[in-house]
């Protein structure tokens, strides 16, 4: 594999990596140059990227890949995207076109915009239409606020009814966490003691060489606490994961790509399929941002994650809908 476009120097620069670990300007230049997306790989804590190009014979065979889709906000009708259903369907078409097909799909929440009747069904039916064997859903606050999570848990809560979950796939251990239930006035997203206890027990039996993928809606790391872009007890959860050699954390919620590496843990937030949000601290507050219509699809997208056995990191491919 050749690094056509190596960003390692920029990303490693403390001036640009101090806040979120991403050099936005450099990243956007990359996006413009690559057209469709980037493969992010990380070695020794340093992120690097290359242009996303058709697989070449020199590429090692993939053990498997999966897709992360996030913040579909079905039911959104605001000015920031008059056709959030259309852009969601475009993302579905992209998933269907993937070769090889993803083994499964992870939805990192805000499946619906306002929990209106039928909104969950639109998403589950559309994702069933892909070739993925399974779809895993973790809620965002927009999926649980109206009924305290009753509908979400009824649909996706699993045998324990708690919604948090783990599974193994070809040697990789996946953990889905919920950090949008039981919000307290003035508080932040949190996992809660019961879930933390479960997580601690869940990973206890694993050897430190097991690659972990953790997914949750609100970022588990402090992206921007003033806007609630943090999980109050995320640090506690991460402390159980520090001994592992490869931990990939996938979040949604902030509708933009941010990446950060701390030791063996790499953090990645994803694009929405519905609308973008401002960069942390830019403007008066978070919320849907209206961009010129011709630019909208370049700030929406989805993510493919490739796992190759023997590689210490999973390769993250973020693609926009443009």
């Amino acid at each position, binding site marked *: 594999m050749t690094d056509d476009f190596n960003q390692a120097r920029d990303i490693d620069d403390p001036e640009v990596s101090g806040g979120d670990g991403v050099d936005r300007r450099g990243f956007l230049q990359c996006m413009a140059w690559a057209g469709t997306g980037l493969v992010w790989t990380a070695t020794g804590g340093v992120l690097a990227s290359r242009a996303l190009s058709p697989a070449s014979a020199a590429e090692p065979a993939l053990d498997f890949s999966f897709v992360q889709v996030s913040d579909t906000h079905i039911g959104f009708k605001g000015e920031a995207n008059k056709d959030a259903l259309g852009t969601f369907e475009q993302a579905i078409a992209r998933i269907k076109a993937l070769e090889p097909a993803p083994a499964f799909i992870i939805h990192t929440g805000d499946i619906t915009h306002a929990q209106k009747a039928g909104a969950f069904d639109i998403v589950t039916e559309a994702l069933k239409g892909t070739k993925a064997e399974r779809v895993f859903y973790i809620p965002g606050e927009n999926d649980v*606020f109206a009924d305290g999570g009753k509908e979400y848990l009824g649909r996706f809560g699993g045998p324990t009814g708690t919604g948090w979950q783990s599974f193994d796939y070809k040697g990789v251990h996946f953990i889905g966490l919920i950090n949008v239930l039981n919000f307290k006035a003035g508080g932040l997203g949190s996992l809660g003691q019961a879930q933390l206890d479960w997580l601690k027990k869940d990973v206890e039996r694993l050897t430190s060489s097991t690659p972990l993928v953790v997914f949750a809606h609100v970022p588990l790391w402090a992206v921007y606490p003033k806007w609630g872009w943090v999980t109050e007890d995320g640090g506690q959860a991460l402390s159980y994961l520090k001994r592992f050699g490869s931990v990939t954390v996938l979040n949604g919620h902030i509708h933009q790509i941010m990446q950060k590496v701390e030791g063996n843990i790499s953090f990645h937030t994803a694009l929405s399929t519905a609308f973008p949000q401002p960069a942390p601290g830019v403007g008066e507050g978070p919320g849907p941002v209206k961009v010129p219509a011709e630019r909208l699809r370049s700030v929406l997208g989805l993510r493919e994650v490739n796992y190759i056995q023997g590689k210490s990191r999973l390769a993250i491919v973020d693609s926009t809908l443009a």
Partner: protein
Amino acid sequence: MNGSNRSIRVRWLWRLAVLGAAVFGGLAVATWASAGQSANGTAAGQLAQPVAVAAQTGPRIEIAKHKFSLPTLTVPAGTTVTWLNRDEDVHTVVSTTQAFRSGGLETDDAYSYKFTKPGVYQYFCTLHPLMTGRVIVK
């Protein structure tokens, strides 16, 4: 379908509210001012208007950029307070003691609650819990 119907209804109500405010506005503002300053007891009696009119002319808290425009509002007992969401995000208005609880408010949706008993009512948005406010009822 329910959502859009409700949305239309709410917008229609707001047009009525604007009209109501134009007609009763001066009277209502004066009434709150004098009632707010009165020491006790008689505030509810001073708001002699029917509830429906009070709902249209009572104090309004706008929700914009993840903030309540009047994070602290003092009103006499019997006042109906209305929250209006100007954001494209969904917000809620939920009492920390569950004394009142709105549904999800989408853009231009409103929620009203009549405060009948004196006290301090803390509330927040259950989607964005950093959004907090309080209504002090005298």
